[in-house]
């Protein structure tokens, strides 16, 4: 009887224990060991766990590497482009589909379909689409656009897409004015042209998912509210701008969080579509981690970069989680 009593009292903990244990080992334990490796001298296949002197030297070296600086820039630019495109297109599709058009189910599934694919598949397909020799550049010839341009005395259109090393809207000049030590950057801060096709491919894959999120949100808005707004004299545009989109804010925040962490961790799409790109124009931290760990065997450097990735994701996720918990209380 006493045993049974004990069991009832601690049932919750007992049931949770296995998963707590696994989480402690396989998530927090491994985060801890990665952090530890990032502070050591382990940079060949021979394991060397002596601590570096000074302790943070690996991080200092990494931040001084032009490649890692380019990775940080690319992550930032990619996140903004990708999320901008995906949210706009996803919301647009959701609003269109919410308007009781014929074939709604068909379109919803069509737009959602890319989400079911693996990023590797998307990457390979879009790699061919944006191949400057065989991809959509051929359409510029087939549709006669290039012939028309040449006739008018312009150069034919032949974008290099993912092979184009140019950085547009460089802000280095501006940066050096407002932040003198910004000169320490060895790279151009701007939008790498080669990243745009990658952002398009990611948008193609995930805008269907954004649409589904918004469709769920739109379904939850009562028709009475719309009627009330219309009676108050709101036009369709005003109805969306002032009533419906503000009511979708919680959905927007959840979607943003999900998309940002996809974007911070992205590896497979970029790896299969463009690799590191010309002059690291499409390199991302996850590829850096992979190459430093497994090609260069610089385990400390790879671990340091993965810790930076973790911190970057936490900066987004932790405030969100705190906010959610606070609301529940």
């Amino acid at each position: 009887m006493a045993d049974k009593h004990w069991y009832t009292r601690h049932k919750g903990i007992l049931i949770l224990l296995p998963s707590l244990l696994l989480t402690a080992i396989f998530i927090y334990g491994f985060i801890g060991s990665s952090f530890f490796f990032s502070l050591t001298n382990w940079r060949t296949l021979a394991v060397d766990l002596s601590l570096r002197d000074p302790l943070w030297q690996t991080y200092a070296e990494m931040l001084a590497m032009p490649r890692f600086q380019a990775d940080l820039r690319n992550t930032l630019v990619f996140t903004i482009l990708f999320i901008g495109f995906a949210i706009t297109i996803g919301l647009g599709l959701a609003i269109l589909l919410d308007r009781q058009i014929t074939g709604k189910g068909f379109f919803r599934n069509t737009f959602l379909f890319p989400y079911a694919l693996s990023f590797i598949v998307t990457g390979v397909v879009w790699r061919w689409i944006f191949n400057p020799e065989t991809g959509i550049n051929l359409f510029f010839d087939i549709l006669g656009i290039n012939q028309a341009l040449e006739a008018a005395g312009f150069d034919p259109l032949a974008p290099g897409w993912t092979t184009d090393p140019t950085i547009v809207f460089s802000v280095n000049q501006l940066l050096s004015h407002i932040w003198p030590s910004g000169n320490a950057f060895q790279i151009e801060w701007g939008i790498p042209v080669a990243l745009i096709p990658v952002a398009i491919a990611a948008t193609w894959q995930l805008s269907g998912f954004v649409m589904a999120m918004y469709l769920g949100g739109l379904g939850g808005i009562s028709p009475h509210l719309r009627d009330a707004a219309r009676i108050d004299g709101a036009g369709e545009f005003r109805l969306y701008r002032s009533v419906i989109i503000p009511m979708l804010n919680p959905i927007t925040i959840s979607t943003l969080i999900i998309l940002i962490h996809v974007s911070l961790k992205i590896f497979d799409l970029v790896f299969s579509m463009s690799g590191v790109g010309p002059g690291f124009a499409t390199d991302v931290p996850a590829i850096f981690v992979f190459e430093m760990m497994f090609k260069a065997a610089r385990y400390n450097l790879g671990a340091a970069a993965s810790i930076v990735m973790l911190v970057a994701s936490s900066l987004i996720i932790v405030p969100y989680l705190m906010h959610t918990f606070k609301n529940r209380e």
Partner: protein
Amino acid sequence: MRINLLLVVLFLSACQSNNQADLKKQVEVFSWWTSGSEAAALESVLETYRALYPDVEVVNASIAGGGGSAARPVLQTRLIGGIPPDTWQTHHGAELMGQYVAPGFAASLKDLYAAEGWHELFSPSLIDMISNDGEPYLVVLNLHRSNTLWYNKPVLTEYGFSIGESLDIDELFEILEQLNTTDVSPMCMGDTGIWATGIMFENTLLGTIGPDRYLGLWNGTTSFMDTDVMEAIRIYDRLLDYLNSDHAALSWDQAADKMASGDCVFYSMGDWAYGEFIRDGLQENIDFGWVAHPGSDGIHLLVTDGFTMAKDAPNPQETLNMLRVMGDRVVQEDFNLLKGSICARNDCDRSRFGPYLQWAMDEYAKGVAVPTVIHGSAAPADFQQALNDALTDFVVRRNKEAFAKTLANEAKVSGFGS
């Protein structure tokens, strides 16, 4: 009760799989040879082994990916995790020594070399590159030459050029300059894999500073900031001006096809390109020709493939037998005819090989062989990656001073630079 039954079943099946392992002996050969000619060449070796040892199961654990880029991560994980394959493919030099010998993953093959008399049959400079403290650790199957300058013969003839036995860098630039006014691209390149432009860099480096200074880069007596190295970087930078404009979208073999079809003319590339030309149906000395990369006549920039033996090989005897087969003369001849490279042994029958490979044998026989950094033989893996990264940056930004400074610094960090 049900759980007990499950355990019994599990236990029985575990016993059974153990028994199966006892019944049939195995040898696991780990490589990155999966493409057409490579896979066929490897298969010819494994076939000979199977014929000699019919009761041993040969496990061909190959993982696709050029230069072992996908295979090495798997291998590293298996080695550190303590489940090594019996034997695995590696390049000679720093990759073998730093990755596998120094951490204690590879076993010495001293007894095998002594028993087979291989010290007489492989050249001393090669033995030296695979040995640590006088003990060899690798059986080398084939030798590739990295520093060859290929050219499309009909296109050059069309524009009125003919190339002799050798070409110096000024003559090359003169031809490139004149070709630049025509429709064809003077130089070929396909650097989606950055190592392809790295080959042109390393060939230019060797051709400009010579073998002794080149070797000095890897032991700290030459610095990447020295004037002759800077001159090599300047020449490489000039060569980049003559590339086909779509080089960043092509792989090295697509660039070889481009040369074969006459869209570009010169290609500084290792002789794995030779296999590509032959496959494209080109005739040696008629459709394409070759010289040593300017300045590197009589020097062989070596890219080798060889096999080690794991220190904790699960099947040591079978592994030794496999390595013995790989060192056999006829096996090496058959393998290299399929792979498009030359034998590591000195006594292969040269009449079985075509004009280019005979030329490569003669060049190798001159005795000056130096290791490649692009394929991991000259410097540790971390420097190899750093060089690839510096090249990725350089081909876009073309900052010669920053490039030299980065390399000098990385050499220091890696532990061999001065």
